[in-house]
């Protein structure tokens, strides 16, 4: 497969989006939204990261194999976090120790 050359215009557009999102996340953080603060902050972070991965890192135009690798990385991270939390979140159910 030949490599795909991304036009600088796309880069500038993505950059603008990233900068705007940064300002947004910074401003929203000061408002009191309760637990939504965490949700908003992390959602924006995920969107930003996705933009970087797809456009700056060219994954949008990459082979399926690259997609698989990217997903594997985050999937394994999810496994690690989920199974560890499965311990911490259920400790209170039947107390042998906190």
């Amino acid at each position: 497969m030949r490599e795909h050359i991304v036009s600088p215009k796309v880069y500038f557009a993505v950059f603008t989006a990233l900068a705007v999102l940064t300002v947004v996340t910074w401003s929203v953080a000061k408002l009191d939204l309760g637990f939504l603060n965490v949700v908003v902050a992390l959602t924006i972070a995920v969107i930003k990261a996705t933009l970087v991965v797809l456009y700056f890192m060219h994954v949008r135009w990459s082979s399926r194999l690259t997609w698989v690798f990217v997903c594997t990385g985050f999937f394994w991270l999810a496994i690690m976090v989920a199974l560890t939390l499965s311990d911490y979140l259920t400790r209170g159910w039947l107390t042998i120790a906190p």
Partner: protein
Amino acid sequence: METAAEVVPPRTHYVNAKYGVKSWLLTTDHKRIALLYLASVTFFFFVGGFFAVLIRLELLTPQGDLVQAETYNRLFTMHGVVMIFFFLIPAIPAVLGNFLVPLMVGAKDLAFPRINLLSWYIYTLGATFTVIAILLGGVDTGWTFYTPYSSTYSNGNVILTGLGVFIVGFSSILTGLNFIVTIHTMRAPGLTWFRLPLFIWSHYATSLIMILGTPVIAVTILLLALERLAHIGIFDPALGGDPVLFQHLFWFYSHPAVYIMVLPAMGVISELVANMTRKNIFGYKFVAFASIAIAVFGFLVWGHHMFVSTQSVYAGMVFSILSYAVAIPSAVKVFNWTATLYKGSISYNTPMLYAFGFIGFFIIGGMTGLFLAALGVDIHVHDTYFVVAHFHYIMVGGTIMGYLGGLHYWWPKISGRMYPEGWARFAALVIFVGFNLTFFPQFLLGYMGMPRRYYAYPEEFQVLNVMSSAGASILGIGYLIPMIYLIWSMRYGPHASANPWGAFGLEWRTSSPPPTQNFEKTPVVTWEAYEFHPREEREALGVMDVLDRTLRPDLNVGDRG
């Protein structure tokens, strides 16, 4: 075993292509790097073995007469650290894998030859730190480095040893990365995934674990070292930290690491069973996918090391059920190897003897794994000699048997010489007997309740301990014999033909030892994996050429110049 008896004219191959220390230390040839690794891991095998000898001597008597308790604790720690991180993990991938992966996929080298060399240097650097730590008195935390003992209370060289482990992890990552990329991008024309030898499948699975798991142990060790340096850290209960979190992070790598050690051995056994019976592996796809399944499920079960660690009872159940899930693909492999023997042409060569030994030990090691995954039973046998026996059946009975079997099987390819068959069979027998005598009594000890890492023990455990120590002395001799005759054979062994076993697989279709470029010209693969056919079928199919080249070594010396 037939060997090329006639005088062979000198031929250029990877060993004699260049001379001098520099040509070895700066080589990017995967075969030479494999030999560098061979020398290194052999050294560490005997260092670790030396510690094991002292441990077994110490345990002859209940009181502990030979060394101080402090020394004993350092001995078993260094035994574990050296054997696991510097022998078992690199043994098969970095030696046999390095040598064979490019040959088996029909490539000239691994994808990143310089990174391959770098990985050996990183290994050496990590090894240097560890050796310095040993010389400065070692470390006494157990190879598991549990906090807060390791972070606060131990007075051993925790940071230095940790640094060694941290560094050697990167060598493992680089090896895994190299394999993955090579297997993906550098397969010879026609060599589709399902035509790959099972050795490659198992190395692919191993590499996945190496790149996904190893960074986690690296960061964990880093946090531990920082905690020790700063005298405060995130595992410290004084800050509200939870020491059990360290165990989670540690086992997230260290359980899959068990599969880093045993999966490559399974790959070796698949090769041995197929080629020594001259049959396709029964259920090839099942064995191939079982490797991948083991690698994936292997990441979901780490909590079974923590059933009594104050982990949540419910998490314990999740980890227990997942542990049973990982047992299934292992069992499938054993069944398929056994079924492969059916109507085969079974040779009793040394490699096959090791394969038989592996299967036997693996059954016991694997089945006792079911004991340990059963929550109620694990409460009793956790952290006792039962566990010690179990993982030695897997590590020593599995990995080392696979390693030695593979080393014998590919020795003619690696060195171009045959080893003495009689001695080799004798050594295999000695190892088999010594191994069982060493480790079987430990199952009983564990069930009786003898905790592991005990320097002195109550008297009722002595008989079994003496048996175990006696077995260890036999086992030790068993390991020395192959080292002696293999070194001897490098100079005095009879020359090996390109394919002394009549085996299938690309590595047997080049000369022994192979040329630096591996193949005279890039092979084009038109056959399935292990596609043995009887002569009449071969004639009917018109595949005479391919199979007769593999089976008639005398036709296969054309490339000898």
